[in-house]
Each structure stands twice: as structure tokens, then as C-alpha cells.
């Protein structure tokens, strides 16, 4: 395999700019890497011909002096993003043959800036899962293994394909989405960087909806700087998404490498949960020490409603999902299973098209929204959500950002937690609060556990203050000097 897949996005863009290699060469190297890594099941659709065509067009643009900020860089696209003329399935059988007739705003922004698409990435069905095991296309395998072990591990979810592809050097970066932790937890499990920006920073238009008040897209990459470069292209106001914020997109990469001296970092005491592995606690302490060394002031803060975030999420998200997924009725697009009458056709189509976890969540949603339970569950959860957001507001009066672990464990074996929904939901215990409050959160690889698996630390910022997160993420990355890579076995 060519060394061109070992480059970071930044060094690849520099190499393209200095004509050290062409986008066609760079893209071919990645197409080959994708083809040789099918055992990971990271891609659900490879688009090599399109990739080479896009690379040729990029080389032509560069020759004529009109190259964009991402020109010629091969990326992977989570299958939740609609791509015009290219099958987009959201990991579900119910739209398993869906060919969008439009392009999502985020992918359109990436193509505007010159990026090349390698294909569509596997994911949990409708982004509902934390291990990629709910995908209709089968689970993704993490390129990481325990030292000396050969058990297949989950890359996390729902953006498992994105995480696995970036970690295995199949693409220079990937799009992902995060409703409760689906960018940050997989980033932690695969030693990659992932940021969920402020709600409203990235347009949701053309992204298959799961829970609209929580869904937010973001990038996954191998370095903090690469994530910053990608987010700068992805973000921006979009009139086609009514919750898209009409704010300027800063050059996020300019924040990476900035001094973090004098920043106040909050350490929320409620994130010290029972049964957390001692290694994760120790890594958190290490992260605190690194930021202290970089000149930050550490402040203990309290987010008293933290433990209620997951239960509130498992009312709000399924309620929104049950409404959003009502559109899959087999009438205008998607799977139709003919029944005896209209209702029977609906019921059969949805029973056949949705997987078990999606059905479970739709039913929870229908239950908490049904007559007699709406106030007791749904409205109650929205009030708790407000309490959680208020906790953050109060903390951010005292601090500039928060530092926490990203996930309560390292990557686990495929099949390990698939029998117990609540045990699976607990993966998102440290990430879900951020979605409820609409804040930006980033996971940065910080170390390895005793078995050699990567662990991440999470930074949480004020709304629209991703810049500070990129500065802090850069400082953590530098201090951690995380260079470990998965040993190639695929």
C-alpha cells in the first residue's frame, strides 16, 4: 500500500498544493486501501469511478489555479447524508435502495470546496445505536484489537463506519453525525478526533432525520487540525434548515496551536461515576495535569442533573424519532410490503423494513407521546432537559470549557452488549448531556488502556465557541503525543 494513505488531511493538502502528487494518485491510493479493507465493513457503498472522476476534475482545477480549500482530498461520507444519484440508506432496509434526487447541504459544501468522495460509510440504523450492530448492512469492525488478541471489537456507533475508515487510513477524514454521542464515542473507541459542533452550526438539510432537536453533523479525522479544516468547510448558514444559525463560520484551523494559557477548565464532579474503570479516571487526571501544564486554571464545577440526562434523552429522542420516522410508510419511496388494506400495508412495510432497535425506539416514542402519558413523560423530560442546559449555563459563568472522559469504557467486543438495551445506552452517559444542551463537544485521543485500546477525553464548550475547543484539543493532542496506530491485520 502506498504511503499516501498515511498522510494527515493537512499534509495531503500541502502535498497537493506543492504538486508533490496529484489528487488522482492520492485518490487511487485510498481506493485501493478501501478495497483491501472490506473485512472491516466500513463502507456500504464504494464509489471508485466517481472518486477518480472527481480527482481528475480536482487536478484540472488545481492546474488552472482555482483549487478550493479541500481540493483533491478523498473523504468518506456517512450513509445518513443524502448524495444525489448515489444510494443513501441510513443503514436501514426500509430505504435500502433509496437514490436521492438531491444533495445534502453538508456534502454539497464539501464538493464546493473540492473534496473527493470515496463512498458511503456504514452506521447504526437511522443512527440509533452505540456499536454499529443495528445496521442493516451488518456491524463494522474496529481496526484496533487488544494487544495479542484477535476478537472483533466494535468501533462504537452510530458513526462506526466513519470511525473505522478514518482509523484504518481508508480516507483522510469523514462526515459523521451525533445525536447522543455518535461522533465522540466512536472517536474515543478508535483513537480518532471527532467534534459535534454547536446545534445549528451545520445544516441538517439532506441528512436523514433521527431526533431533529438533537441531531448535528460534524467531522471525524486523525488530528485536531484536520477536524478543524473539515468543520470549516461543512459549517455555515443554510436557509433550507430553519434551525441553521445565521452566524459566520470562523477559520477553525486558526485556533489550533493557539495558547490556552489562562483558560479556566471545569471538571464536573458528577462525571465521576460508579464502576468507571480506574484507567479512565487516571487518564482524566492526566488530562487535567496536561492542561494545567499548558497554563490552564482547573476549577471543580457541579452539573447536578447529569445522571438524569440519559433517561431524559430516551424520552426526547424516541419521541422525535417516532414522528420523524412516520414518513416511512411505503407509499412514495422506500420498501412496500403489500397487505390486505392500507393500514395492513403500512404495518407490514414498517415491520419488514425496520430493525429491532429502531422499532423499540419508535414504540417508546409512540408510548410517551400517547394520550395520558404526554405530560408525565414527554413534557417532564423537556423540563429536565432545561435543568440540564441550566446546569451548563451556570458552569460556563465560571469556566471557559469542561474536560471529561468521552466514554465510560474502551471499545468492547461485538455482541457483548447487544442483549441489554439499557447497558448499551449507558455508553453515551458523558456525551448525551451536550446534545440536550445544544453545545459543542470534541473527543481527542489521549492514551491507551492496559490492553492497548485507545481512550479519548472530551472537551465541552460554550455555544458557538468551537474555537476554544480546537485550541484546547490541540493542546491536549500535543501533550498526549498520541501516535499509536492499529496494527494492520485486515
Amino acid at each position, binding site marked *: 500500500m502506498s504511503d499516501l494513505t498515511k498522510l494527515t488531511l493537512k499534509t495531503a493538502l500541502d502535498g497537493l498544493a506543492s504538486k508533490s502528487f496529484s489528487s488522482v494518485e492520492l485518490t487511487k491510493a485510498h481506493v485501493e486501501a478501501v478495497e483491501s479493507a472490506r473485512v472491516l465493513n466500513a463502507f456500504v457503498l464504494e464509489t471508485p469511478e466517481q472518486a477518480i472522476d472527481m480527482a481528475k476534475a480536482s487536478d484540472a482545477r488545481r492546474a488552472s489555479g482555482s483549487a478550493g480549500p479541500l481540493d483533491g482530498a478523498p473523504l468518506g461520507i456517512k450513509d445518513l447524508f443524502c448524495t444525489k444519484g448515489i444510494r443513501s440508506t441510513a443503514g436501514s432496509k426500509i430505504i435500502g435502495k433509496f437514490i436521492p434526487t438531491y444533495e445534502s447541504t453538508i456534502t454539497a459544501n464539501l464538493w464546493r470546496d473540492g473534496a473527493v468522495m470515496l463512498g458511503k460509510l456504514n452506521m447504526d440504523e437511522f443512527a440509533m445505536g452505540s456499536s454499529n450492530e443495528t445496521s442493516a448492512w451488518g456491524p463494522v469492525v474496529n481496526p484496533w484489537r487488544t494487544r495479542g488478541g484477535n476478537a472483533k471489537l466494535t468501533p462504537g456507533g452510530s458513526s462506526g463506519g466513519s470511525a473505522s475508515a478514518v482509523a484504518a487510513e481508508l480516507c483522510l477524514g469523514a462526515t459523521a453525525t451525533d445525536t447522543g454521542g455518535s461522533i465522540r464515542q466512536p472517536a474515543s473507541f478508535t483513537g480518532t478526533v471527532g467534534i459535534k459542533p454547536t446545534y445549528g452550526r451545520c445544516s441538517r438539510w439532506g441528512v436523514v432525520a433521527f431526533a431533529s*432537536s438533537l441531531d448535528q453533523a460534524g467531522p471525524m479525522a486523525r488530528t485536531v487540525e484536520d477536524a478543524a479544516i473539515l468543520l470549516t468547510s461543512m459549517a455555515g448558514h443554510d436557509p433550507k434548515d430553519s434551525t441553521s444559525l445565521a452566524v459566520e463560520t470562523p477559520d477553525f484551523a486558526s485556533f489550533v496551536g493557539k495558547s490556552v494559557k489562562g483558560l479556566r477548565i471545569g471538571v464536573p464532579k458528577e462525571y465521576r461515576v460508579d464502576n468507571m474503570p480506574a484507567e479512565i479516571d487516571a487518564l482524566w487526571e492526566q488530562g487535567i495535569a496536561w492542561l494545567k501544564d499548558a497554563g490552564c486554571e482547573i476549577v471543580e464545577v457541579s452539573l447536578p*442533573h447529569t445522571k438524569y440526562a440519559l*433517561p431524559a434523552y430516551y424520552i426526547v429522542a424516541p419521541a422525535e424519532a417516532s414522528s420523524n420516522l412516520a414518513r416511512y410508510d411505503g407509499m412514495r419511496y*422506500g420498501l412496500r410490503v403489500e397487505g390486505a*388494506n392500507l393500514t395492513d400495508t403500512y404495518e*407490514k412495510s414498517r415491520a419488514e423494513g425496520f430493525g429491532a432497535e429502531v422499532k423499540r425506539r419508535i414504540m*417508546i416514542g409512540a408510548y410517551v407521546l400517547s394520550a395520558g402519558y404526554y405530560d408525565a413523560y414527554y413534557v417532564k423530560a423537556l*423540563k429536565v432537559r432545561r435543568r440540564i442546559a441550566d446546569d451548563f449555563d451556570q458552569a460556563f459563568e465560571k469556566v471557559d470549557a469542561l474536560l471529561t472522559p468521552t466514554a465510560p469504557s474502551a471499545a468492547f467486543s461485538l455482541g457483548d452488549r447487544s442483549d441489554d438495551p439499557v447497558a448499551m445506552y449507558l455508553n453515551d452517559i458523558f456525551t448525551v448531556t451536550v446534545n440536550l444542551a445544544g453545545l459543542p463537544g470534541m473527543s481527542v485521543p489521549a492514551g491507551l488502556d492496559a490492553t492497548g485500546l485507545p481512550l479519548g477525553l472530551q472537551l465541552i464548550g460554550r455555544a458557538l465557541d468551537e474555537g476554544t475547543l480546537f485550541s484546547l484539543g490541540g493542546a491536549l493532542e500535543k501533550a498526549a503525543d498520541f501516535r499509536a496506530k492499529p496494527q494492520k491485520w485486515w
Partner: protein
Amino acid sequence: MTIDVATVRKVARLARIAQPEETLEKLAGELNGIMSWIEQLNEVDTDGVEPMTSAVHMPAPMRDDVVTEGGDPEVVLSNAPKRAGNFFVVPKVVE
């Protein structure tokens, strides 16, 4: 609050998902497990708290009431499970 088989049957109907009778009991168990874990929300004092319905601090924007795109039935129908001419074919709704 416990969810019995009758409730699961009703919710499955509301959600328009066919659930075979023999799966209802297991589903009731799963949903009960999830809902009893959620019950802890009752510990939170939410008196006088305004429900949070949006994560963005801005009023909903208004747009001009004009047609922006359309007039292309081929595009609209391109993923139709069943079509006839420029129409979707759906099961009979009115007897």
C-alpha cells in the same frame, strides 16, 4: 407503571408496526426495563420549569411564501414503489 401485552399491542398499532402476537410479551419486558429506568426522572423537581423545546436561541425564521422548485414529476416519482404515469399508486383508501 408497567407496560402489559395489551399496551404493547396498542402502541404497535399506533406506530403502524406489525408485531406478531408471540413477540409482544418479550417486547413488554424490554419496554418495561427501559421505562422503569426512565422513572428516575420523577426525582427531579421541575416545578415552574419551562419545557425546553429547542436547542437554538433564536426565533423561527420566516421565508417568502413562493415556489422555489418543483414541476418535475420524474424527480418526485423516481423512488416510488409503484407508479402509473405521473401518479403514485397506493392501496385503496375509500371503499
